[in-house]
């Protein structure tokens, strides 16, 4: 069984993550997930690849804090956060977040909160590689 919070190069399986989440409690009645994937355009330019870099030890610690806070704040039964740090192409998976709760409202709210907080708090940066050159993204829409 994989740990619920991970930073990894390799792709992840949403089915495996959801199965692991479900296995944590039979009281779970609602699971909300967010899958972030790579777009082939940004600010009107085509993007051929996106490269990620992380402050690994701090990023993992912040992601664990985020999960613990989300569980406490929304009364979740369990949650998982997986972020890839590698170079991806259009359509490739980047981040997966899952929130499991007794009912759907807490699952939706917890999932939304975790991805919004991740973008603000977790030290990961993306660089867009375009036909015109490379550029780090320094805002988080």
């Amino acid at each position, binding site marked *: 069984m994989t740990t619920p919070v991970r930073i990894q190069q390799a792709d992840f399986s949403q089915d495996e993550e959801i199965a692991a989440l479900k296995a944590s409690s039979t009281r779970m009645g609602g699971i909300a997930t967010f899958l972030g994937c790579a777009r082939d355009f940004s600010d009107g330019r085509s993007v051929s690849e996106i490269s*990620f*870099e*992380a*402050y690994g030890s701090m990023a993992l610690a912040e992601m664990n804090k985020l999960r613990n806070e989300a569980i406490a704040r929304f009364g979740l039964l369990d949650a998982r956060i997986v972020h890839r740090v590698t170079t991806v192409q259009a359509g490739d998976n980047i981040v997966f977040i899952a929130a499991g709760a007794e009912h759907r409202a807490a699952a939706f709210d917890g999932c939304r909160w975790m991805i919004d907080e*991740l973008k603000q708090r977790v030290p990961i940066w*993306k660089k867009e590689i375009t036909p015109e050159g490379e550029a780090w993204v*320094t805002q988080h829409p």
Partner: protein
Amino acid sequence: MIKVLFFGPVADRIQTREMSFEATPGITVSDIIARIAAQHPGALDMVSFIAVNQEQVQDRQTLLRDGDEVALMAKFSGG
């Protein structure tokens, strides 16, 4: 020694990923930033977040000690 780490856009701008400074008594985050800025003018303009030992700090007067790890970071763009 105090280790200072740079990532992503800041590392590209400053053209290194790590620097070390002697842990003199009373040295602060602000002192370190001033020394780096003197060597690399403008290179830290995009720094929005500072961490000491993987914990974010707001106060640039935070005192540093031998063995501390400081990260000077641009706005995050993960997810």
